[in-house]
């Protein structure tokens, strides 16, 4: 297990450096002077400009800028925002709990909906209900989140006055509508996954054995089929949570929730290059770590993977 862990970590390292360097490179070639962008049309005093260049190493060759930057990143210092001069770590400390609340609530809704729905579809395979449910899930997938967000604001917020539609002023309650919007497409994917894994499990030999032992159909389903079919879905819900932790650009913008996604949108508008790079690199790290975690869980569940 330990050997497999190290092998996976060694594979991650080049991916991490390739991705971060790509981000670093592309952000640096974004047209427009990032220092000038902070001053609008005003002229920048020479000494101030020099201080900026000194601070962000803009005068060094690109590879050295990258090297200096990664040295800071690896010691958990993402530097300061060019626009607000605030440490990016502070901005993160505020934004991450908001995105995490949203992520947690969304995953909760996904689990609440997709597991029962998947079970139902699998038990009534190819029935009228199952087929119409396929079409419903495809519609849920085809609606872009921002359209769904706007429609939800129109109906649930303005017409029926059920939920607040902007900001986080009302605590957990203000996260419900955006979380429902985020979870819609995931509900569609995850309930299909639940259906497929359950159907695959129904074909397993150990289910036949359980039946042959004379267990009741309900017990075969609950203890033998469902438990095993839940493993992949729980893993995927974990991945979803990890991915959402990095914020959702669209939904956070539509509902004005100042999480990670909202911060990166603002950074783009303000040409705040250090935040763009910082958040992107944070997201890449989060993605890679979650993938590592998932691989480890799979390897633990299925020993064949370890010896592959």
């Amino acid at each position, binding site marked *: 297990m330990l050997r497999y862990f190290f092998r996976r970590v060694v594979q991650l390292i080049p991916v991490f450096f390739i991705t971060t360097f790509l981000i670093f490179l592309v*952000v640096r070639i974004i047209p427009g002077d990032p220092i000038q962008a902070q001053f609008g049309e005003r002229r920048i005093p020479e000494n101030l400009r020099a201080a900026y260049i000194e601070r962000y190493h803009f005068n060094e060759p690109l590879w050295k800028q990258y090297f200096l930057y990664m040295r800071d990143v690896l010691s958990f210092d993402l530097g300061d925002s060019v626009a607000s001069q605030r440490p990016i770590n502070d901005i993160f400390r505020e934004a991450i709990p908001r995105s995490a609340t949203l992520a947690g609530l969304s995953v909760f809704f996904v689990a609440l909906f997709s597991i029962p729905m998947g079970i139902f579809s699998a038990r009534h395979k190819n029935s009228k209900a199952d087929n119409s449910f396929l079409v419903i899930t495809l519609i849920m997938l085809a609606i872009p989140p921002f359209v769904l967000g*706007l429609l939800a604001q129109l109906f649930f917020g303005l017409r029926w006055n059920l939920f607040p539609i902007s900001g986080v002023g009302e605590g957990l309650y203000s996260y419900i509508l955006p979380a429902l919007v985020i979870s819609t497409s995931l509900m569609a994917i995850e309930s299909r996954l639940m259906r497929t894994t359950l159907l695959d499990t129904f074909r397993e030999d150990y289910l036949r054995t359980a039946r042959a032992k004379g267990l009741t159909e309900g017990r075969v389903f609950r203890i033998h089929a469902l438990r095993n079919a839940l493993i992949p879905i729980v893993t995927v819900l974990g991945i979803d949570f990890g991915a959402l932790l990095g914020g959702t650009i669209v939904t956070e913008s539509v509902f004005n929730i100042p999480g990670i996604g909202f911060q990166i949108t603002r950074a783009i508008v303000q040409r705040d290059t250090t935040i763009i790079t910082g958040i992107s690199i944070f997201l890449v790290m989060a993605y890679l770590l979650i993938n590592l975690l998932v691989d480890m869980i799979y390897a633990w569940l299925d020993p064949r993977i370890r010896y592959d």
Partner: protein
Amino acid sequence: MTNVIHPPESSSTVDESRTFWRDSWRILRRRWLFWFSLIIIIVFIAMAAFPEAFVAPSPGPDDPSGKFCLLTNDRLAPSAEHWYGTDVQGCDYYAQVTHGARVSLIVALFATLFSVTIGILLGGLAGFYGGWLDAFVSRIADGFFALPYLVGAIIVLSALTTQGSRQIWHVTVAIGSLGWPAVVRLYRSTVLQVKNLEYVQAARALGASDGRIIYRHILPNAIAPTLVYSTIGMGSVIAVEATLSFLGIGLPINSISWGIMLTEAGNRIENTPHLLIFPSIYLIVASLGFVLMGEQLREAFDPRQR
């Protein structure tokens, strides 16, 4: 007595020959969802190609006839004269929404072609030759995967242009350049499955060149999953293009696109909900058409479903 041995009859008089594509077609043509999604796709392609057939002259704030845009007509609710109402400029919204199909379909088609071409090329080479080439291509694809899609699109778009000078092809390239790694992964894995099959070995034994094997023997037999993926992909590109425009990093605000219309609508949902509803419906239905079609193709192409 004529005991001549009859030569085998030509294939046309025997059973219809059974090829993979013909079998798939047999399955498809029996499904109403296939026809349903095909009709949606055809209607939207027609709308994109000949919007004049759906609504007379081209609309826009500089509409010469004044028939479609009258500033005094701004923000009218839907009526018999203006089916979908009018927008803030007083333009007929039905005409606007209809003309919006063009941008969406152009971006969807070319961005998908772009990523599929690169994906098949790199994925095919990586899968066929393996070794360092495979490792190199796969690691770069992994790198792209690690970057969240929208963040990637935002970064690429900001690097390509500034807000004012942005055009359709910038958006197309940005979306396409993020889509290829998924195609590489998919196509590479199918090539890996196909390349060791007997008929490929047979072709090799007969002395076929690598190029011929890849083009004549592997490509036709490994393309089906990629075809499914790109059909569904067209649906998601339509949504992504609208999303980028909505975030203010897609098309310029004077273009006629569903994403831009929805941005406008989002700022004033309370008073003019019709501005939100109609482009939403078009966007969802267009996207759904391709997703449904992809699902039907997936089931028809999958031998295990037969």
